[in-house]
């Protein structure tokens, strides 16, 4: 694996190689080179299988961290390739030409995080949130409870109880005023 880490650093300036397990490592690359890195890993590195692609919202440093997990079946090794993109302008190169299922992950990230992948097929179409009007729901600053309270009306006659208060009233009725 050290050979691969050295090669990725030499070719693409990859950094922060970390071995999580003997069959799982991670590495960080620049977002501008992500497609080149993934194409090289697929064509020359033997990492031909894309397990999944997704994103993590690191709102504290105003960045989305994209993670592409590839697997080299010959070596029995998986590699998580990370890249950070600007959270206020989240755009990154599409990899739909590298893997036939990649456009689905990109369509999901567009809908869930608002990350754009120019050129990716059907990237602007709804994925699982049909008729969704709100902001991207997987962002950390999206408060689902607040959105729900503001968007949907309570059904008339329905009684709801906060679970903590409800349990207290059942278990310690004398303590609840």
């Amino acid at each position, binding site marked *: 694996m050290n050979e691969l880490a050295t090669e990725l650093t030499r070719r693409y300036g990859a950094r922060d190689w970390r071995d999580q397990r003997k069959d799982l490592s991670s590495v960080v690359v620049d977002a501008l080179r992500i497609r080149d890195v993934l194409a090289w890993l697929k064509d020359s*590195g033997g990492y031909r299988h894309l397990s999944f692609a997704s994103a993590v919202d690191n709102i504290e440093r105003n960045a989305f961290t994209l993670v592409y997990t590839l697997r080299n079946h010959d070596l029995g090794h998986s590699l998580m390739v990370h890249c950070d993109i600007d959270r206020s302008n989240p755009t990154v190169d599409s990899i739909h030409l590298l893997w036939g299922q990649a456009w689905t*992950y990109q369509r999901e990230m567009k809908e869930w995080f608002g990350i754009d992948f120019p050129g990716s097929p059907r990237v602007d179409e709804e994925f*699982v949130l049909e008729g969704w009007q709100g902001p991207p729901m997987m962002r950390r600053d999206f408060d689902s409870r607040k959105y729900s309270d503001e968007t949907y009306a309570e059904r008339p006659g329905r009684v709801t109880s906060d679970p903590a208060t409800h349990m207290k009233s059942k278990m310690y009725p004398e303590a609840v005023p």
Partner: protein
Amino acid sequence: MKREKAYIIPPAERATPDLASGKYLVMWQGPQHPGITGNMSLKLVVEGDSVVDCETHVGYLHRGFEKLMESRLWMQNFPLVCRIAVPEPDFNEYCYAAALEELAGVEVPARSVWLRTMTLEMIRLASFLMWIGGQAGAFGHGTIAQWSVTMRDYVLDLFEELSGGRIYHMYIIPGGVRADVPKDFFKHLLDTLTIIEKNLDDIELVMFHNVVFKMRAEGLGYIPKEWVDTYGITGPNARATGIPRDLRKDLGYLAYPQLDFEPITCTKSDAFGRAELRLAEMYQSINLIRQMVDKMPSGAIREKLPNPLYWKIPAGETYVSAECTRGEYGFYVVSDGSDKPRRVVVRGPSYTHAVSVMERLVRGVNIADVAGLMVSLHTYPPEVER
């Protein structure tokens, strides 16, 4: 390093039929349809009775699991994860529990490792039994579906005996398993396996030698070997192309390295070949369970964990995967050191098989065979939507 030629698909392969010509008809199959596994829609463009184009529509079972998990404690998420894939919840339990254990540095006792492996094989068998009923039913063989669902119920009886739950077991928990096996459980298990094995012999005779099933399934949904990496195809769909790729063997997780088995492959790679392969894997699961009953070690079943209400997992990330009935099932878990997950991503094999592969394979297929094709890919939409 050896350089290999990349297999890159052209960007736009979809047909562009002129819908105003009156030659085509747009029809929806699903979300509520006997030929659709789970709740999912196929928007089909048909010419006569042949499919020209297809768009998949998911989202009918989106319950926001991944978002919800970010606002619940690590252990509070446990009853959620098993609900992501209904027919085989135990793979979710295992992947989530193993990810937590890896990040928290928890070692689980040997007996719990074997019990985990045994339950995963039991649910594999139950899920395949449900699948073979669907596959036979899609081609008009309702009797086989009734047999196989009965056999699945026998396995669910065993789960009820083991865990108290028939569908959602919550048996594999972080630190080990929830309880040891009850008295005489292994005897009941072996007796049930004998009954199921006999029934599988009958199914093999009635289904796989039936001319209707053979004529409709042979050649349907052929997957070329080159597609496996291009589309991220895993599990029996990949092994049916002749590639011996099985995470149980490749990753060697749980007790699998100590069991005697080899990945089963075939080269037909159509609906019939995939069905034959899955039938062989059902016999293989029975064999693995018998081996485990023979070799089951004794000892503790659970490692003591911190108070779940105050359990903070050290910062880090990991990806844990396992071979489920449909292929690679995985959990990517990120912790920021707090008492709640920062991010959880569920990787289900249907994400690939039910969307990209299905859209590609269905072109040119007769409308009546769309259901059979979809079942032959063994897809569960809930794991696409999470």
